[in-house]
Every structure is written in C-alpha cells, then in structure tokens.
C-alpha cells in the first residue's frame, strides 16, 4: 500500500475509533445551539429586568417637572397606570428620590424637543434596573405630542403598517432578501469551523505527539516528510468528512421525522446556489484549511510538547476566527471595506471569502484575485511548515531557536 495511504489510514482510524470523537461530533451542534440560546436569553433577560421592575412600580407616584408644557396629564389617569405628581421645583424632586419618598423623578427641560436631555432620577435597582424609565419618559412625551393631533391622524399613526422589500443588484437582477440566503453561508462556515476547530487540533496533536514521544526519527526513516504531512492532513480531512456525514445524516433524519412540526421560517425552495459557487467554496475551504494545517504542522514541529504547541497555536486560531467578531458587518456589507480587508488578510481570508461566495457577492475578478492570493499564502505556509518540520521535528524536549531557524532558511 502507498505509504501516504498507510498514514491516512492510521490518522483517520486513530481519531474516529475514539469514543470522544462521536461525543464531540454530536456535541458540536448542541454546543452551538446552547451558546445561541444562552446569549439570546441573557439579552432578553436584561431587557426584561428593566420592564419587570418598572411593572412592579406600577401604581406608584411619579414626580414630573415639565418645562415643555407638552406632557398630557390625561396619560396618568388610567387606574392601572402610574399616578403623576407634577412639581415645579427640580431640587424638590431630586430630594424626594434621595430620601426614598418617590421611585422616579423625571425632568423635561424646556428645550427637550431641541435636543436638551430629559433628566431621570430613580432609586437604585442595579445596572439593568436603573434604566427602567428611559423608554417610558420618551414614550410619554411622544404620546403627549400625539394626543394634541387630530383624531384621524392619531388613528393613522397607530395603523399597523406592513412592508414588502424587493432588492436589485447592480445588474438590475432582483435578489433574495429573505433569511434563506444565509442558509448556505452558515452551512459553509459550519463545515469550515469543523475543519479549523477539530481537524487542525487533531493535526497539531498528531505532530506534537510524534515529537513529544520521540517517535519522529523512526517514522522519518520509513517515509518522507512530504508523505507524512500529506497523510496527516488528508487523514484529518477524512475525519471532518465523516463528521459532516454524521451531522448531515442526523439533520436529514430529524428533518424527516419532525420536519412538519419544525417552524424555522425558511423556504428552502428559495435557496439558489450554482455549481460554480460550490466549486469555488470547496476550493476556498480546502486552501484555507491547508494553510491553517501547515501552520499547525509548523507549530507542532517547533514546540517541544503538545501543551506548548496548543498554547502557541491559539494565536493563529484566534486570527482565523476574527471575522466572527465582524459578522454583523459582514452580513450588512459583504463587500464593504472590512469584508475586503479580511478577505485578503492571511488566515482570516478563507472564512470571509467562503461567506461572501455563498452570499453571491464575489465578482469573477475577485474570485480570480482571491484564489491567487490564497495560493500564494498556501505556498508560503507550506514552505515554512516544511522548513520548521525539517528544523524542529527532531529537536526533542526543547523549543527551537527562531534565530537559528531563520539563519538556516537564509543558508
């Protein structure tokens, strides 16, 4: 059997035979779901806290000083609402709060409608609770202005309007504005993330293990570094394909079993993706994974232990996921300056290009240019990975000297 195939088989089986592989594969989507749910819940919770405290204080008296003469006192006449005490002395209102005689004092300065700030004084209810009257203070002045308008305008104002958006690209073609257009980018990114988070981590572990366990020399007497590295990378790609197949099959089973009951609000029939986009996506995914894989091989060979290699490699992993910090901006402006910058920045380029390709915003010229840039990055990464491997893989138990390494490259 070809030696690269033997390495691929070993690297693949070494990972997939572990129970932790199945567990981590199944936990990955669960983890994403849990993180999303927690972050949504915590945002809702912060909002709810303010509303809850304000609701608890319903019926209590509010001190108001209105220099605008716009606040309509009828707003406070409903039995379930707050009652308002209109005062004319600002200091008196503030004192009432300080002495805990009232929960809130709102001061509307004369120039409120020209930009002067509405001042709100409240009893302390914590970070989220202290802003509990911010929205209401604005709401009351707006509602008061509205109440001064004729009834027909008030009715018109309160109408529930509905919208329908149609967007056209620069060629005059109508583009899809529904959430469905994000399905393919998200799927591409999920596959990319599997590659970067699992495969590169296994790859780093594999190279570090051979160095840390001092088995590298005997391995290198039996096969060429090229065969070893290629075998390791392809083995890990095989692992990710297995993960994608497991997760994909699981998704299909869940969809077939519960599809009718799942209301995810996405019309899958509206998703359009061309064969060319898929080819480009595969190309970007392979190249960007290859670049990161080379980095991991280099780091694994340069560092004496897996632990140190892991810690050093985190720098590169962070750079590769930087686009996530700009995800809102990337969705809003997929061809904006940040998106363009990250498309050509080493390590982050793969993820951004993949996302933008799936969004359908890459021009043919940009596809060509970005492919050339990625190939150049891949070549540089491969060059350094091999040099680091040659230089560092037999330096058992010690970090390489970067000075000596760069000197060896110059020679």
């Amino acid at each position, binding site marked *: 059997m070809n030696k690269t195939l033997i390495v691929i088989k070993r690297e693949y089986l*070494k990972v997939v035979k572990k129970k932790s592989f199945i567990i981590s594969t199944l936990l990955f989507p669960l983890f994403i779901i849990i993180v999303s749910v927690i972050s949504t819940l915590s945002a809702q919770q912060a909002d709810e806290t303010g509303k809850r405290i304000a609701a608890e204080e319903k019926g209590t008296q509010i001190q108001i000083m209105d220099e605008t003469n716009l606040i309509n006192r009828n707003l406070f006449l409903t039995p379930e609402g707050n009652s308002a005490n209109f005062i004319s002395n600002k200091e008196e209102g503030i004192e009432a709060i300080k002495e805990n005689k009232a929960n809130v004092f709102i001061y509307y300065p004369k120039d409120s409608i020209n930009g002067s700030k509405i001042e709100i004084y409240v009893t302390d209810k914590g970070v989220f609770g202290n802003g509990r009257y911010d929205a209401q203070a604005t709401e009351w002045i707006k509602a008061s202005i509205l109440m001064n308008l004729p009834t027909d305008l008030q009715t018109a104002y309160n109408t529930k309007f509905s919208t329908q958006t149609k967007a056209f690209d620069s060629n005059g073609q109508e583009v899809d504005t529904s959430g469905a257009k994000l399905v393919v980018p998200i799927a591409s990114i999920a596959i990319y993330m599997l590659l970067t988070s699992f495969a590169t981590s296994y790859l780093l572990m594999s190279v570090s293990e051979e160095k840390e366990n001092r*088995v590298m020399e*005997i*391995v290198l007497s*039996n096969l*060429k570094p090229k065969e070893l590295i290629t075998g390791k990378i392809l083995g890990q790609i095989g692992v990710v394909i297995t993960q994608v197949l497991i997760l994909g099959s699981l998704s299909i089973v869940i969809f077939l079993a519960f599809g009718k009951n799942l209301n995810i609000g996405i019309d899958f029939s509206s998703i359009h993706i061309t064969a060319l986009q898929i080819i480009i996506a595969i190309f970007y995914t392979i190249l960007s994974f290859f670049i990161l894989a080379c980095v991991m091989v280099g780091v694994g060979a340069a560092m004496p232990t897996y632990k140190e290699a892991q810690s050093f490699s985190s720098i590169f992993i962070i750079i590769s996921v930087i686009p996530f910090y700009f995800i809102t901006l990337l969705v809003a402006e997929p061809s904006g300056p940040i998106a363009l910058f990250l498309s050509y920045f080493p390590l982050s380029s793969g993820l951004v290009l993949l996302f933008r390709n799936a969004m359908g915003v890459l021009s043919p010229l940009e596809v060509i240019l970005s492919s050339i840039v990625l190939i150049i990055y891949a070549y540089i990464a491969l060059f350094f990975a091999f040099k680091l491997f040659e230089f560092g893989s037999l330096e058992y138990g010690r970090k390489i000297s970067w000075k000596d390494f760069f000197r060896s490259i110059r020679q």
Partner: protein
Amino acid sequence: MPTEIITIKNFSKSFGNKKVIKDLSFNVNAGEVFAFLGPNGSGKTTTIRALLDIYKADEGELLIKGKRYSSDDSNILGYMPEERGMYLNSSVMEVLTYFAELKGLSNKDAKIEGLKYLNRVDLVDKANVKINKLSSGQQQKIQLGITLVNKPQLLILDEPTKGLDPINRNFLMEILLEMNKQEGATILFSTHQLEEVEKIADRLVMIKDGERKLYGEVNEVKAQYGNNIIRINYKGKLPENTKLYTYTSENYYAEIVPQEKVTTSDILKFLMENKLEISKFEVGAPSLTEIFIKVINE
C-alpha cells in the same frame, strides 16, 4: 572481495558555523557486525541520520547498497534511533502493524509477523494493550520489534543497549547475533559498551570530534596498541613516573600503559625498587575501553 552495504566517503556536515563531521570515510560489508564508536557529541548520530537521509550531507557520499538511501528502501532496513519513543496511546499490535506496513509488508503479513515477534518475546497476551500500560522492559522489547518486524537485511542501531538492564541487554545481543548468523543481516551499531564490541563486532570505526581516529578489524585495532598493558593489584601508593608509564587506578587496582620503548620488566623493576607490595601482576593486550580512553585523551 566483500560486498559493501554501507559506503561513507568524505562526508562532512556543519550546523551553523560548527563543523561536526570532517571528511569521514568508512564502509560496512555485507554480513558483518560493525561497531561505530566515539564519545558523546562526536558525530555518530549525525552520521547515521545523514546516512538515512534524515539530514542532508554538506559534502561527500553516504550510500546504502550503492545508492543514497530513500525511505522507499525501508523494506531492507531496521533502524533503532538513540532517541527512542513510541505511540504511547496506541496498542502494541497497532504500532507493530503500522511500522511493518510502512516497511512494505501487506496488512495481513504485518499482523502475522507482529504476532510472531510477540510470541517470541512472550508478549503475545499484550497485543491489544496500549503501549503506555507496559513496563519499561516490555516497551523496549516492542521498540526492538518495530526494528525487526520486517526481517531487515540491514540493521542500524544507535546505542541499542542504552537504558537496558543486563537481562534485556543480553536478550538484545542474542537476538542481534541470531539475525546476523541465521538471517545474514548486516549490523551497524553505535555503543559505549565496549566489551560488547569485543564480543560481537567484526570491525569498527572510532571517531572523535567528527574525525576518524581508528578503523579496521577489532583485533587489528587492538594490535595497533600493543600487547603489553600491565594490570596490577597492589598495596600502598603507586609511584608516579611519566617517563616510564601512564596509568589509571582505582581501589588498589591499576592499569599501566608503558611509554614507547619501555619494557614491562623496566616497569616491574621500578615498582619493586619503590617497595610497592604487588599481589597480582598481569601483562596483556589493552581492552577496547583502554584504547578508547587513550584515543579520546590524545
């Protein structure tokens, strides 16, 4: 004329500005046991790594069977490096099979040969046990198994007895000799255990600071250093006389090397004159250890 298996001709190698091997030449013939000697840091491991194409030579030729070694030829080779290790989280059988396959055996043959070896070293019951669960001695046997599983024509062993207890050392020597005598394997080994060299090696090369110092058949090399080393057991203080001899001494036992043109009788006479109480006086050829120390201290 013997067939050369290993040919090293005018090999030089530097790391940075330091030249670690200088114009080294020697060869190893088919079927012989060849010792590669030298103190720590003399360049033995560098030479072996360059021979196996792990390092690149700056100058010279390093050939196995007349051509540069390529990992494609690993089917003929059994290599045990000085820095030894294994995949600790893999099972014994996985490791043996993996290396056997890399050395060109089919998966089926790799398993058969792996089991045969385990049977031979009484570890067949450990076939599915992870390496990190084995004792140090058992791990060393598996390490040797990785080297021998493909029944190699050429064994290159860099300090094979390093870290072995006497039982495992004897076991290793037995297996190596068996490989040499029964399978006709050529063996190149480096070691600091010079008594082993005297026992099993046909020829040797000794290097110091990357330069060849001694080379030839073991008996020839010993003969170069004469047959008149004096070993004595004594009481009292051994007198100094650098005109007559140099010596090493420990616990009232001394090995005395006469200076050039000084006879053993001259030395005995001098010792008697100095009233040294001698309980044993023996004259013989120097051991390789003595030659090694002499060469290194020169």
